[in-house]
Protein backbone atom coordinates (compact mmCIF):
# COMPACT_ATOMS: atom_id res chain seq x y z
CA UNK A 1 0.00 0.00 0.00
CA UNK A 2 1.46 3.36 -0.94
CA UNK A 3 1.08 6.49 1.08
CA UNK A 4 -1.53 7.97 -1.17
CA UNK A 5 -3.72 4.92 -0.78
CA UNK A 6 -3.64 5.34 2.95
CA UNK A 7 -5.27 8.72 2.49
CA UNK A 8 -8.45 7.11 1.25
CA UNK A 9 -10.81 5.97 3.93
CA UNK A 10 -11.99 2.40 3.62
CA UNK A 11 -15.69 1.61 3.96
CA UNK A 12 -14.98 -0.17 7.22
CA UNK A 13 -13.21 2.87 8.69
CA UNK A 14 -16.11 5.09 7.79
CA UNK A 15 -18.67 2.73 9.32
CA UNK A 16 -16.70 2.60 12.57
CA UNK A 17 -16.35 6.36 12.67
CA UNK A 18 -20.07 6.85 12.07
CA UNK A 19 -21.03 4.31 14.73
CA UNK A 20 -18.68 5.82 17.28
CA UNK A 21 -19.98 9.34 16.83
CA UNK A 22 -23.40 8.53 15.40
CA UNK A 23 -25.16 6.67 18.19
CA UNK A 24 -26.84 9.85 19.36
CA UNK A 25 -28.13 10.41 15.82
CA UNK A 26 -29.48 6.85 15.81
CA UNK A 27 -31.17 7.63 19.13
CA UNK A 28 -32.87 10.64 17.58
CA UNK A 29 -33.99 8.65 14.55
CA UNK A 30 -35.22 5.89 16.87
CA UNK A 31 -37.24 8.35 18.99
CA UNK A 32 -38.83 9.86 15.90
CA UNK A 33 -39.63 6.39 14.54
CA UNK A 34 -41.21 5.22 17.81
CA UNK A 35 -43.37 8.31 18.29
CA UNK A 36 -44.41 8.34 14.62
CA UNK A 37 -45.43 4.68 14.82
CA UNK A 38 -47.33 5.09 18.08
CA UNK A 39 -49.15 8.32 17.17
CA UNK A 40 -48.68 8.91 13.43
CA UNK A 41 -51.58 11.33 13.15
CA UNK A 42 -50.47 13.67 15.93
CA UNK A 43 -46.71 13.36 16.02
CA UNK A 44 -46.17 13.23 12.29
CA UNK A 45 -48.54 16.07 11.45
CA UNK A 46 -47.15 19.04 9.54
CA UNK A 47 -48.31 21.35 12.32
CA UNK A 48 -46.52 19.40 15.02
CA UNK A 49 -43.28 19.24 13.04
CA UNK A 50 -43.42 23.00 12.47
CA UNK A 51 -43.97 23.65 16.16
CA UNK A 52 -41.01 21.42 16.99
CA UNK A 53 -38.79 23.35 14.60
CA UNK A 54 -39.95 26.72 15.93
CA UNK A 55 -39.32 25.58 19.50
CA UNK A 56 -35.84 24.51 18.52
CA UNK A 57 -34.92 27.61 16.51
CA UNK A 58 -33.76 30.00 19.26
CA UNK A 59 -31.94 27.36 21.31
CA UNK A 60 -30.30 26.11 18.11
CA UNK A 61 -28.73 29.51 17.39
CA UNK A 62 -27.41 29.75 20.96
CA UNK A 63 -26.14 26.16 20.89
CA UNK A 64 -24.15 26.78 17.70
CA UNK A 65 -22.20 29.53 19.49
CA UNK A 66 -21.74 27.27 22.51
CA UNK A 67 -20.37 24.55 20.18
CA UNK A 68 -17.53 26.83 19.06
CA UNK A 69 -16.74 27.81 22.64
CA UNK A 70 -16.69 24.23 23.94
CA UNK A 71 -14.59 22.98 20.99
CA UNK A 72 -12.05 25.67 21.88
CA UNK A 73 -11.99 24.14 25.38
CA UNK A 74 -14.01 26.93 26.97
CA UNK A 75 -17.53 27.26 28.31
CA UNK A 76 -20.07 30.09 28.08
CA UNK A 77 -22.56 30.23 30.95
CA UNK A 78 -23.56 33.80 30.12
CA UNK A 79 -25.43 33.29 26.84
CA UNK A 80 -28.96 33.31 28.33
CA UNK A 81 -28.31 36.53 30.23
CA UNK A 82 -26.56 38.12 27.25
CA UNK A 83 -29.64 37.24 25.18
CA UNK A 84 -31.85 39.00 27.73
CA UNK A 85 -29.56 42.04 27.84
CA UNK A 86 -29.49 42.27 24.03
CA UNK A 87 -33.24 41.90 23.76
CA UNK A 88 -33.82 44.75 26.22
CA UNK A 89 -31.29 47.01 24.46
CA UNK A 90 -32.80 46.17 21.08
CA UNK A 91 -36.40 46.68 22.25
CA UNK A 92 -35.67 50.01 23.92
CA UNK A 93 -33.74 51.31 20.92
CA UNK A 94 -36.63 50.39 18.63
CA UNK A 95 -39.10 52.09 20.99
CA UNK A 96 -37.01 55.23 21.20
CA UNK A 97 -36.50 55.36 17.43
CA UNK A 98 -40.19 55.01 16.73
CA UNK A 99 -40.89 57.88 19.08
CA UNK A 100 -42.79 55.74 21.52
CA UNK A 101 -40.27 55.50 24.34
CA UNK A 102 -41.97 54.52 27.55
CA UNK A 103 -44.79 52.56 25.93
CA UNK A 104 -45.29 49.52 28.10
CA UNK A 105 -47.29 47.18 25.92
CA UNK A 106 -48.86 46.64 22.53
CA UNK A 107 -47.18 47.03 19.18
CA UNK A 108 -45.53 49.97 17.52
CA UNK A 109 -45.63 50.94 13.89
CA UNK A 110 -41.84 51.06 13.52
CA UNK A 111 -40.61 50.49 9.97
CA UNK A 112 -38.01 48.03 8.70
CA UNK A 113 -35.24 50.60 9.06
CA UNK A 114 -35.87 50.87 12.80
CA UNK A 115 -36.10 47.08 13.10
CA UNK A 116 -32.82 46.70 11.24
CA UNK A 117 -31.10 49.18 13.56
CA UNK A 118 -32.56 47.45 16.60
CA UNK A 119 -31.37 44.08 15.36
CA UNK A 120 -27.87 45.33 14.56
CA UNK A 121 -27.74 46.85 18.03
CA UNK A 122 -28.69 43.47 19.54
CA UNK A 123 -25.94 41.64 17.64
CA UNK A 124 -23.33 44.34 18.37
CA UNK A 125 -24.23 44.29 22.08
CA UNK A 126 -23.89 40.49 22.09
CA UNK A 127 -20.49 40.70 20.42
CA UNK A 128 -19.39 43.28 22.98
CA UNK A 129 -20.31 40.96 25.87
CA UNK A 130 -18.55 38.12 24.07
CA UNK A 131 -15.40 40.20 23.64
CA UNK A 132 -15.48 41.00 27.34
CA UNK A 133 -15.74 37.28 28.12
CA UNK A 134 -12.96 36.49 25.66
CA UNK A 135 -10.69 39.21 27.01
CA UNK A 136 -11.08 38.04 30.59
CA UNK A 137 -10.47 34.41 29.60
CA UNK A 138 -7.64 34.85 27.08
CA UNK A 139 -5.80 37.93 28.34
CA UNK A 140 -6.57 38.07 32.06
CA UNK A 141 -6.38 34.24 32.19
CA UNK A 142 -9.37 33.85 34.50
CA UNK A 143 -11.09 30.44 34.18
CA UNK A 144 -13.96 30.58 31.67
CA UNK A 145 -16.38 29.04 34.16
CA UNK A 146 -15.87 31.96 36.57
CA UNK A 147 -15.73 34.68 33.90
CA UNK A 148 -18.98 33.67 32.25
CA UNK A 149 -20.66 33.05 35.62
CA UNK A 150 -19.72 36.63 36.45
CA UNK A 151 -20.95 38.09 33.17
CA UNK A 152 -24.11 35.98 33.52
CA UNK A 153 -24.94 38.03 36.62
CA UNK A 154 -23.74 41.31 35.14
CA UNK A 155 -25.77 40.96 31.94
CA UNK A 156 -28.94 39.91 33.75
CA UNK A 157 -28.59 42.66 36.32
CA UNK A 158 -27.77 45.14 33.59
CA UNK A 159 -30.92 44.15 31.69
CA UNK A 160 -33.00 44.70 34.82
CA UNK A 161 -31.40 48.09 35.43
CA UNK A 162 -32.06 49.16 31.84
CA UNK A 163 -35.67 48.02 31.89
CA UNK A 164 -36.47 48.88 35.49
CA UNK A 165 -37.05 45.20 36.17
CA UNK A 166 -40.13 44.81 34.00
CA UNK A 167 -40.20 43.40 30.51
CA UNK A 168 -40.45 45.77 27.56
CA UNK A 169 -43.75 44.66 26.09
CA UNK A 170 -44.02 46.93 23.06
CA UNK A 171 -42.49 45.52 19.87
CA UNK A 172 -42.71 46.68 16.26
CA UNK A 173 -45.74 45.08 14.65
CA UNK A 174 -43.74 44.24 11.50
CA UNK A 175 -41.15 42.32 13.51
CA UNK A 176 -43.77 40.24 15.31
CA UNK A 177 -45.90 39.41 12.29
CA UNK A 178 -43.20 38.89 9.67
CA UNK A 179 -40.34 37.43 11.68
CA UNK A 180 -42.04 36.09 14.79
CA UNK A 181 -44.92 34.32 13.12
CA UNK A 182 -44.23 34.99 9.45
CA UNK A 183 -43.13 32.61 6.75
CA UNK A 184 -40.58 32.62 3.95
CA UNK A 185 -41.46 30.23 1.13
CA UNK A 186 -43.89 28.49 3.48
CA UNK A 187 -41.23 27.93 6.13
CA UNK A 188 -41.51 29.80 9.44
CA UNK A 189 -39.11 32.75 9.35
CA UNK A 190 -37.59 31.82 12.73
CA UNK A 191 -36.76 28.36 11.41
CA UNK A 192 -35.31 29.88 8.26
CA UNK A 193 -32.99 32.10 10.31
CA UNK A 194 -31.87 29.15 12.44
CA UNK A 195 -31.21 27.01 9.35
CA UNK A 196 -29.11 29.79 7.80
CA UNK A 197 -27.12 30.27 10.99
CA UNK A 198 -26.51 26.52 11.32
CA UNK A 199 -25.39 26.20 7.68
CA UNK A 200 -22.98 29.13 7.80
CA UNK A 201 -21.59 28.17 11.21
CA UNK A 202 -21.17 24.56 10.09
CA UNK A 203 -19.32 25.58 6.92
CA UNK A 204 -17.03 27.93 8.81
CA UNK A 205 -16.27 25.38 11.53
CA UNK A 206 -15.53 22.46 9.27
CA UNK A 207 -14.08 24.02 6.13
CA UNK A 208 -12.21 27.19 7.02
CA UNK A 209 -8.99 28.16 8.72
CA UNK A 210 -10.96 29.90 11.47
CA UNK A 211 -12.69 26.61 12.25
CA UNK A 212 -9.48 24.59 12.18
CA UNK A 213 -7.81 27.04 14.54
CA UNK A 214 -10.77 26.71 16.90
CA UNK A 215 -10.16 22.95 17.06
CA UNK A 216 -6.39 23.44 17.40
CA UNK A 217 -6.73 25.87 20.32
CA UNK A 218 -9.08 23.47 22.08
CA UNK A 219 -6.90 20.46 21.37
CA UNK A 220 -3.55 21.84 22.53
CA UNK A 221 -3.37 25.52 23.30
CA UNK A 222 0.39 25.62 23.84
CA UNK A 223 0.98 23.60 20.67
CA UNK A 224 -1.27 25.95 18.72
CA UNK A 225 0.63 28.94 20.06
CA UNK A 226 3.96 27.43 19.05
CA UNK A 227 2.58 26.69 15.58
CA UNK A 228 2.12 30.41 15.16
CA UNK A 229 -1.63 30.63 15.81
CA UNK A 230 -2.69 33.79 17.63
CA UNK A 231 -4.37 31.93 20.48
CA UNK A 232 -5.53 35.08 22.27
CA UNK A 233 -7.23 36.47 19.18
CA UNK A 234 -8.82 33.12 18.35
CA UNK A 235 -10.22 32.71 21.87
CA UNK A 236 -11.64 36.23 21.88
CA UNK A 237 -13.17 35.67 18.45
CA UNK A 238 -14.86 32.45 19.59
CA UNK A 239 -16.46 34.13 22.63
CA UNK A 240 -17.44 37.10 20.47
CA UNK A 241 -19.12 34.68 18.07
CA UNK A 242 -21.04 33.12 20.95
CA UNK A 243 -22.11 36.59 22.09
CA UNK A 244 -23.14 37.53 18.55
CA UNK A 245 -25.27 34.38 18.37
CA UNK A 246 -26.97 35.45 21.62
CA UNK A 247 -27.68 38.79 19.90
CA UNK A 248 -29.32 37.06 16.92
CA UNK A 249 -31.28 34.84 19.31
CA UNK A 250 -32.41 37.98 21.19
CA UNK A 251 -33.98 39.40 18.02
CA UNK A 252 -35.68 36.05 17.35
CA UNK A 253 -36.96 35.90 20.92
CA UNK A 254 -38.36 39.45 20.78
CA UNK A 255 -40.06 38.65 17.47
CA UNK A 256 -41.53 35.37 18.67
CA UNK A 257 -42.89 36.46 22.06
CA UNK A 258 -43.59 40.14 21.24
CA UNK A 259 -41.93 41.04 24.52
CA UNK A 260 -38.55 40.77 26.17
CA UNK A 261 -38.32 37.70 28.37
CA UNK A 262 -36.09 38.72 31.24
CA UNK A 263 -36.91 35.73 33.39
CA UNK A 264 -37.20 33.21 30.59
CA UNK A 265 -33.58 32.32 29.84
CA UNK A 266 -32.04 31.20 33.10
CA UNK A 267 -31.69 27.63 31.84
CA UNK A 268 -30.42 28.43 28.32
CA UNK A 269 -26.78 27.88 29.27
CA UNK A 270 -27.38 24.40 30.66
CA UNK A 271 -29.78 23.49 27.84
CA UNK A 272 -27.21 24.45 25.21
CA UNK A 273 -24.28 22.84 27.02
CA UNK A 274 -26.14 19.55 27.32
CA UNK A 275 -27.21 19.76 23.65
CA UNK A 276 -23.62 20.38 22.57
CA UNK A 277 -22.28 17.55 24.71
CA UNK A 278 -25.04 15.18 23.58
CA UNK A 279 -24.00 15.97 20.03
CA UNK A 280 -20.57 14.48 20.62
CA UNK A 281 -18.60 17.67 21.30
CA UNK A 282 -16.05 16.98 23.98
CA UNK A 283 -16.01 19.07 27.15
CA UNK A 284 -12.21 18.70 26.98
CA UNK A 285 -12.11 20.59 23.67
CA UNK A 286 -10.73 19.75 20.25
CA UNK A 287 -13.61 17.53 19.15
CA UNK A 288 -17.13 18.30 17.97
CA UNK A 289 -19.47 19.23 15.15
CA UNK A 290 -22.36 21.56 14.39
CA UNK A 291 -24.39 18.65 13.03
CA UNK A 292 -24.02 16.84 16.36
CA UNK A 293 -25.29 19.94 18.16
CA UNK A 294 -28.38 20.06 15.92
CA UNK A 295 -29.14 16.47 16.89
CA UNK A 296 -28.45 17.30 20.54
CA UNK A 297 -30.89 20.23 20.45
CA UNK A 298 -33.69 18.13 18.97
CA UNK A 299 -33.46 15.15 21.34
CA UNK A 300 -34.97 16.86 24.42
CA UNK A 301 -37.54 18.69 22.28
CA UNK A 302 -38.71 15.49 20.55
CA UNK A 303 -38.68 13.63 23.84
CA UNK A 304 -40.89 16.22 25.55
CA UNK A 305 -43.22 16.42 22.58
CA UNK A 306 -43.54 12.64 22.35
CA UNK A 307 -44.20 12.26 26.05
CA UNK A 308 -46.93 14.91 25.93
CA UNK A 309 -48.59 13.27 22.93
CA UNK A 310 -48.36 9.82 24.53
CA UNK A 311 -49.84 11.16 27.77
CA UNK A 312 -46.73 10.38 29.83
CA UNK A 313 -46.27 13.05 32.52
CA UNK A 314 -43.83 15.55 30.91
CA UNK A 315 -41.77 15.58 34.09
CA UNK A 316 -40.29 12.32 32.90
CA UNK A 317 -38.62 14.18 30.07
CA UNK A 318 -36.40 15.99 32.56
CA UNK A 319 -35.46 12.69 34.15
CA UNK A 320 -34.76 11.03 30.79
CA UNK A 321 -32.65 14.00 29.62
CA UNK A 322 -30.48 13.88 32.72
CA UNK A 323 -29.80 10.20 32.14
CA UNK A 324 -29.04 10.68 28.43
CA UNK A 325 -26.63 13.51 29.24
CA UNK A 326 -24.67 11.42 31.73
CA UNK A 327 -24.62 8.57 29.21
CA UNK A 328 -23.28 10.90 26.51
CA UNK A 329 -20.37 12.15 28.61
CA UNK A 330 -19.60 8.60 29.74
CA UNK A 331 -19.43 7.42 26.14
CA UNK A 332 -17.17 10.36 25.25
CA UNK A 333 -14.76 9.38 28.01
CA UNK A 334 -14.84 5.72 26.99
CA UNK A 335 -14.03 6.75 23.43
CA UNK A 336 -11.07 8.81 24.60
CA UNK A 337 -9.74 5.99 26.75
CA UNK A 338 -10.07 3.51 23.88
CA UNK A 339 -8.35 5.90 21.53
CA UNK A 340 -5.41 6.40 23.87
CA UNK A 341 -4.98 2.65 24.20
CA UNK A 342 -5.30 2.00 20.47
Amino acid at each position, binding site marked *: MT*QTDAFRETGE*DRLLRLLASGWIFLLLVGLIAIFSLLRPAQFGSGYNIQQLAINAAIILVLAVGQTYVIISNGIDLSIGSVLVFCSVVSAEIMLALSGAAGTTFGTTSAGWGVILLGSLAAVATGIAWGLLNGFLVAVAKIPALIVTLGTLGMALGGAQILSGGTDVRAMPELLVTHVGSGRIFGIPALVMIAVLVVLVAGLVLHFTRFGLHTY*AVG*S*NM*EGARRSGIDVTRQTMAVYALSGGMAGIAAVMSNARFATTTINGHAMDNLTTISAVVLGGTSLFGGVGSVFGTVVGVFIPIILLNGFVILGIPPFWQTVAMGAVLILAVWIDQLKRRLRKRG
Partner: protein
Amino acid sequence: MPEPILQATGITRTFGHVQALRGVDFKVMPGEIVALIGDNGAGKSTLVKILSGADRADGGEIRIDGTPARFGSPAEAQAAGIATVYQDLALAPDLPPAENLFLGRERLKPGLLGRLGMLDRQAMRAESAKVFETLGVNLKSHRVPVDTLSGGQRQSVAIARAAMWAEKIVFLDEPTAALGVVQTARVLELAKRVRDSGTSVVLISHNMPQVLEVADRIHVLRLGESVANLRPAETTVDGLVREMTSGTREGFTP
Protein backbone atom coordinates in the same frame (compact mmCIF):
# COMPACT_ATOMS: atom_id res chain seq x y z
CA MET B 1 35.69 23.31 3.78
CA PRO B 2 32.14 24.65 3.39
CA GLU B 3 30.93 27.42 5.65
CA PRO B 4 28.83 26.44 8.70
CA ILE B 5 25.08 27.16 8.48
CA LEU B 6 25.08 28.09 12.13
CA GLN B 7 28.07 29.25 14.08
CA ALA B 8 27.82 30.23 17.73
CA THR B 9 30.93 31.60 19.43
CA GLY B 10 31.53 32.42 23.08
CA ILE B 11 27.93 31.97 24.16
CA THR B 12 27.42 32.78 27.85
CA ARG B 13 24.30 32.65 29.98
CA THR B 14 23.94 33.21 33.72
CA PHE B 15 20.94 32.56 35.94
CA GLY B 16 21.56 34.37 39.20
CA HIS B 17 24.75 32.85 40.58
CA VAL B 18 24.68 29.88 38.24
CA GLN B 19 26.80 30.13 35.12
CA ALA B 20 24.91 27.79 32.81
CA LEU B 21 27.05 28.53 29.76
CA ARG B 22 30.63 29.83 30.05
CA GLY B 23 31.53 30.62 26.47
CA VAL B 24 30.30 27.76 24.34
CA ASP B 25 31.41 27.43 20.72
CA PHE B 26 29.02 25.41 18.60
CA LYS B 27 28.55 25.02 14.87
CA VAL B 28 26.32 23.14 12.47
CA MET B 29 27.60 22.24 9.00
CA PRO B 30 25.31 21.75 6.00
CA GLY B 31 23.84 18.26 5.70
CA GLU B 32 25.07 16.72 8.93
CA ILE B 33 23.70 15.22 12.14
CA VAL B 34 25.44 16.78 15.14
CA ALA B 35 24.88 15.06 18.45
CA LEU B 36 24.89 17.38 21.46
CA ILE B 37 25.66 15.41 24.59
CA GLY B 38 26.50 16.16 28.17
CA ASP B 39 25.57 15.23 31.72
CA ASN B 40 22.56 16.76 33.45
CA GLY B 41 23.27 20.43 34.06
CA ALA B 42 25.93 20.61 31.35
CA GLY B 43 23.94 23.33 29.56
CA LYS B 44 22.45 21.39 26.62
CA SER B 45 18.91 22.68 27.12
CA THR B 46 20.05 26.24 27.72
CA LEU B 47 22.15 26.20 24.56
CA VAL B 48 19.32 24.75 22.47
CA LYS B 49 16.87 27.31 23.86
CA ILE B 50 19.21 30.13 22.91
CA LEU B 51 19.88 28.78 19.42
CA SER B 52 16.16 28.25 18.76
CA GLY B 53 15.04 31.64 20.02
CA ALA B 54 13.36 30.52 23.25
CA ASP B 55 16.01 32.23 25.42
CA ARG B 56 18.62 34.97 24.93
CA ALA B 57 22.34 34.70 25.49
CA ASP B 58 24.10 37.17 27.82
CA GLY B 59 27.13 37.22 25.57
CA GLY B 60 28.61 35.74 22.44
CA GLU B 61 27.60 35.77 18.82
CA ILE B 62 25.37 33.67 16.58
CA ARG B 63 25.92 33.67 12.83
CA ILE B 64 23.53 32.13 10.33
CA ASP B 65 25.22 31.53 6.96
CA GLY B 66 27.93 33.93 8.02
CA THR B 67 25.67 36.85 8.97
CA PRO B 68 25.12 37.76 12.63
CA ALA B 69 21.63 36.90 13.90
CA ARG B 70 19.69 37.57 17.07
CA PHE B 71 16.46 35.67 17.79
CA GLY B 72 13.93 37.40 20.00
CA SER B 73 11.41 34.55 19.79
CA PRO B 74 11.04 31.00 18.45
CA ALA B 75 9.03 32.49 15.57
CA GLU B 76 12.06 34.55 14.50
CA ALA B 77 14.27 31.47 14.59
CA GLN B 78 11.67 29.62 12.54
CA ALA B 79 11.65 32.40 10.00
CA ALA B 80 15.42 31.94 9.73
CA GLY B 81 14.89 28.24 8.99
CA ILE B 82 15.47 26.75 12.45
CA ALA B 83 12.84 24.60 14.17
CA THR B 84 12.84 22.64 17.42
CA VAL B 85 10.95 19.49 18.35
CA TYR B 86 10.58 19.46 22.12
CA GLN B 87 9.71 16.37 24.08
CA ASP B 88 6.07 17.41 24.43
CA LEU B 89 5.87 17.53 20.58
CA ALA B 90 3.29 20.37 20.56
CA LEU B 91 0.92 18.50 18.26
CA ALA B 92 -2.84 18.97 18.36
CA PRO B 93 -3.84 15.45 19.48
CA ASP B 94 -7.38 15.64 18.12
CA LEU B 95 -6.39 16.63 14.58
CA PRO B 96 -5.15 14.29 11.81
CA PRO B 97 -1.47 14.28 10.70
CA ALA B 98 -1.97 16.49 7.62
CA GLU B 99 -3.74 19.20 9.61
CA ASN B 100 -0.95 19.07 12.18
CA LEU B 101 1.74 19.40 9.53
CA PHE B 102 0.13 22.56 8.20
CA LEU B 103 -1.08 24.04 11.49
CA GLY B 104 -0.52 27.78 11.43
CA ARG B 105 0.48 27.63 7.74
CA GLU B 106 -2.68 26.24 6.16
CA ARG B 107 -3.12 26.02 2.41
CA LEU B 108 -6.21 27.91 1.28
CA LYS B 109 -8.34 27.36 -1.81
CA PRO B 110 -7.50 29.65 -4.72
CA GLY B 111 -9.67 32.67 -5.48
CA LEU B 112 -12.60 34.03 -3.52
CA LEU B 113 -13.13 30.90 -1.40
CA GLY B 114 -9.55 31.15 -0.19
CA ARG B 115 -10.07 34.83 0.62
CA LEU B 116 -12.92 33.69 2.86
CA GLY B 117 -10.54 31.34 4.63
CA MET B 118 -11.68 28.12 2.95
CA LEU B 119 -9.09 25.36 3.49
CA ASP B 120 -7.66 23.35 0.62
CA ARG B 121 -7.66 20.02 2.45
CA GLN B 122 -6.88 18.01 -0.66
CA ALA B 123 -3.73 19.98 -1.36
CA MET B 124 -2.62 19.68 2.26
CA ARG B 125 -3.27 15.92 2.34
CA ALA B 126 -1.45 15.35 -0.94
CA GLU B 127 1.49 17.47 0.12
CA SER B 128 1.80 15.83 3.51
CA ALA B 129 1.58 12.39 1.89
CA LYS B 130 4.56 13.40 -0.20
CA VAL B 131 6.49 14.66 2.82
CA PHE B 132 5.78 11.48 4.77
CA GLU B 133 6.81 9.37 1.81
CA THR B 134 10.10 11.24 1.28
CA LEU B 135 10.91 10.89 4.96
CA GLY B 136 9.84 7.24 5.06
CA VAL B 137 7.16 7.80 7.70
CA ASN B 138 4.59 5.06 7.38
CA LEU B 139 1.25 5.87 8.95
CA LYS B 140 -1.58 3.38 9.11
CA SER B 141 -4.19 5.99 8.41
CA HIS B 142 -4.07 9.69 7.64
CA ARG B 143 -7.61 10.46 8.73
CA VAL B 144 -7.38 9.57 12.38
CA PRO B 145 -6.38 12.01 15.14
CA VAL B 146 -2.64 11.86 15.92
CA ASP B 147 -3.59 10.85 19.44
CA THR B 148 -4.45 7.38 18.12
CA LEU B 149 -0.95 6.91 16.66
CA SER B 150 1.87 5.19 18.54
CA GLY B 151 4.47 7.23 20.41
CA GLY B 152 7.03 6.73 17.63
CA GLN B 153 4.58 7.77 14.95
CA ARG B 154 3.60 10.89 16.87
CA GLN B 155 7.28 11.72 17.24
CA SER B 156 7.69 11.15 13.48
CA VAL B 157 4.82 13.50 12.68
CA ALA B 158 6.36 16.19 14.88
CA ILE B 159 9.80 15.74 13.27
CA ALA B 160 8.30 15.75 9.78
CA ARG B 161 6.51 18.98 10.59
CA ALA B 162 9.72 20.60 11.79
CA ALA B 163 11.69 19.33 8.78
CA MET B 164 9.00 20.50 6.39
CA TRP B 165 9.21 24.12 7.53
CA ALA B 166 12.83 24.45 8.65
CA GLU B 167 15.01 24.39 5.58
CA LYS B 168 18.23 24.81 7.58
CA ILE B 169 18.30 23.09 11.00
CA VAL B 170 16.01 20.91 13.11
CA PHE B 171 16.77 20.52 16.81
CA LEU B 172 15.56 17.24 18.30
CA ASP B 173 15.35 17.29 22.09
CA GLU B 174 15.75 13.70 23.36
CA PRO B 175 13.46 12.34 20.63
CA THR B 176 13.79 8.71 21.66
CA ALA B 177 13.69 9.09 25.45
CA ALA B 178 10.22 7.55 25.77
CA LEU B 179 10.36 5.04 22.90
CA GLY B 180 10.91 1.30 22.56
CA VAL B 181 13.68 -0.32 20.52
CA VAL B 182 11.86 -0.60 17.19
CA GLN B 183 10.37 2.86 17.38
CA THR B 184 13.71 4.34 18.36
CA ALA B 185 15.30 2.82 15.26
CA ARG B 186 12.54 4.33 13.10
CA VAL B 187 12.97 7.80 14.58
CA LEU B 188 16.75 7.66 14.06
CA GLU B 189 16.22 6.52 10.49
CA LEU B 190 13.93 9.51 10.08
CA ALA B 191 16.65 11.82 11.43
CA LYS B 192 19.00 10.46 8.73
CA ARG B 193 16.38 11.00 6.05
CA VAL B 194 15.88 14.58 7.22
CA ARG B 195 19.64 15.11 6.89
CA ASP B 196 19.68 13.49 3.44
CA SER B 197 16.86 15.80 2.34
CA GLY B 198 19.23 18.70 3.03
CA THR B 199 18.21 19.90 6.51
CA SER B 200 20.86 19.53 9.21
CA VAL B 201 19.86 17.87 12.46
CA VAL B 202 21.02 18.61 16.00
CA LEU B 203 20.30 15.59 18.17
CA ILE B 204 20.27 16.05 21.93
CA SER B 205 20.65 12.67 23.54
CA HIS B 206 21.73 10.71 26.59
CA ASN B 207 22.11 7.46 24.72
CA MET B 208 25.80 6.97 23.80
CA PRO B 209 25.54 3.92 21.51
CA GLN B 210 22.75 5.68 19.65
CA VAL B 211 24.81 8.81 19.24
CA LEU B 212 27.79 6.83 17.92
CA GLU B 213 25.57 5.06 15.45
CA VAL B 214 23.68 7.97 13.96
CA ALA B 215 25.74 11.16 14.35
CA ASP B 216 28.27 12.55 11.89
CA ARG B 217 29.86 14.62 14.62
CA ILE B 218 29.58 14.70 18.40
CA HIS B 219 29.77 17.87 20.48
CA VAL B 220 30.30 17.32 24.21
CA LEU B 221 29.35 19.92 26.85
CA ARG B 222 30.52 19.82 30.44
CA LEU B 223 29.68 22.40 33.11
CA GLY B 224 28.72 24.99 30.54
CA GLU B 225 31.82 24.59 28.38
CA SER B 226 32.53 22.84 25.10
CA VAL B 227 34.99 20.07 25.94
CA ALA B 228 35.11 17.87 22.84
CA ASN B 229 34.28 17.82 19.16
CA LEU B 230 34.63 14.29 17.84
CA ARG B 231 33.90 12.01 14.89
CA PRO B 232 32.13 8.79 15.95
CA ALA B 233 34.91 6.77 14.31
CA GLU B 234 37.50 8.42 16.59
CA THR B 235 35.82 7.45 19.85
CA THR B 236 33.91 4.89 21.88
CA VAL B 237 31.18 4.94 24.51
CA ASP B 238 33.89 4.97 27.18
CA GLY B 239 35.65 7.85 25.46
CA LEU B 240 32.44 9.88 25.36
CA VAL B 241 31.68 9.19 29.01
CA ARG B 242 35.22 10.28 29.92
CA GLU B 243 34.72 13.59 28.07
CA MET B 244 31.32 14.11 29.70
CA THR B 245 32.66 13.56 33.21
CA SER B 246 36.20 14.96 33.09
CA GLY B 247 36.78 16.69 29.75
CA THR B 248 38.27 20.19 29.81
CA ARG B 249 38.09 23.21 27.60
CA GLU B 250 41.69 22.61 26.50
CA GLY B 251 40.63 19.37 24.80
CA PHE B 252 38.20 21.19 22.51
CA THR B 253 39.03 21.73 18.87
CA PRO B 254 36.40 23.74 17.07
